[in-house]
């Protein structure tokens, strides 16, 4: 699976305004609503479900990366977006570090395989330190999109 299979380019956010976990999740889901892949009516339900998942254990996996996610019946394919926080956000990460790079995923309830493939793609690409650093330094959504495209073309393959 590639980033272009699930990341909605119009929903990519850099310089996130939010400074806490709640705020970042709201901001990123809002961004997906604005692109039309998620309806306004489902917004609160999705945010609630993502927060509930976070209560089971933070999706902050370390190295400044988090993958907040949920399954939700309102989507019929895996959708996601990317957020970058300049300051970093306290996310109760596994390593205690602030998170500056977010990959938010919403998957249909009956497609666990797609979710696993997205996690595989994200982790495989982010293991490349250069790609990870460039993403964290991106200062426009276009920059992020370009980096994701380059990753999809294996330009960061290690």
């Amino acid at each position, binding site marked *: 699976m590639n980033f272009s299979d699930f990341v909605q380019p119009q929903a990519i956010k850099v310089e996130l305004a939010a400074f806490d976990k709640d705020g970042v999740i709201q901001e990123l889901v809002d961004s997906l609503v604005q692109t039309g892949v998620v309806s306004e009516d489902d917004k609160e339900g999705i945010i609630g479900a993502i927060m509930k998942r976070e209560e089971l*254990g933070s999706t902050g996996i370390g190295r400044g990366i988090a993958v907040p*996610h949920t399954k939700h019946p309102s989507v019929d394919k895996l959708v996601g977006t990317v957020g970058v926080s300049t300051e970093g956000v306290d996310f109760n990460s*596994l390593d205690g570090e602030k998170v500056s790079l977010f990959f938010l995923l919403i998957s249909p309830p009956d497609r*666990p395989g797609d*979710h696993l493939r997205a*996690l*595989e793609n994200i*982790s495989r690409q*982010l*293991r490349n330190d250069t790609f990870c650093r460039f993403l964290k330094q991106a200062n426009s959504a276009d920059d992020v999109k370009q980096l994701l495209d380059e990753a999809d073309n294996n330009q960061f393959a290690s």
Partner: protein
Amino acid sequence: MSNETQKREVKVLNKRGFHLRPAEVFMRTASQFESKVELIKDAVRVDGKSMLSLMMLNASAGELITIEATGPDAEQVVGVLEKLFETRFDESE
């Protein structure tokens, strides 16, 4: 101290596969032991003590994974980790 290698083949019983939460439980548990721990599925071999590495495994329900541990407590760690797979990492399905 011996540096023996122990292997154990396990099946993913969780309905949603070896997703983020099982991976975290695995990583936390493996990290309590001294031995090097790796998970192997087909041609993919990942570090059992690194989240980013474990997320690369992409193992769905029903798939077989080999746990490989090398070090002084290898025997013990493969036993504990095998149990995690057998008990679905404490998930209900």
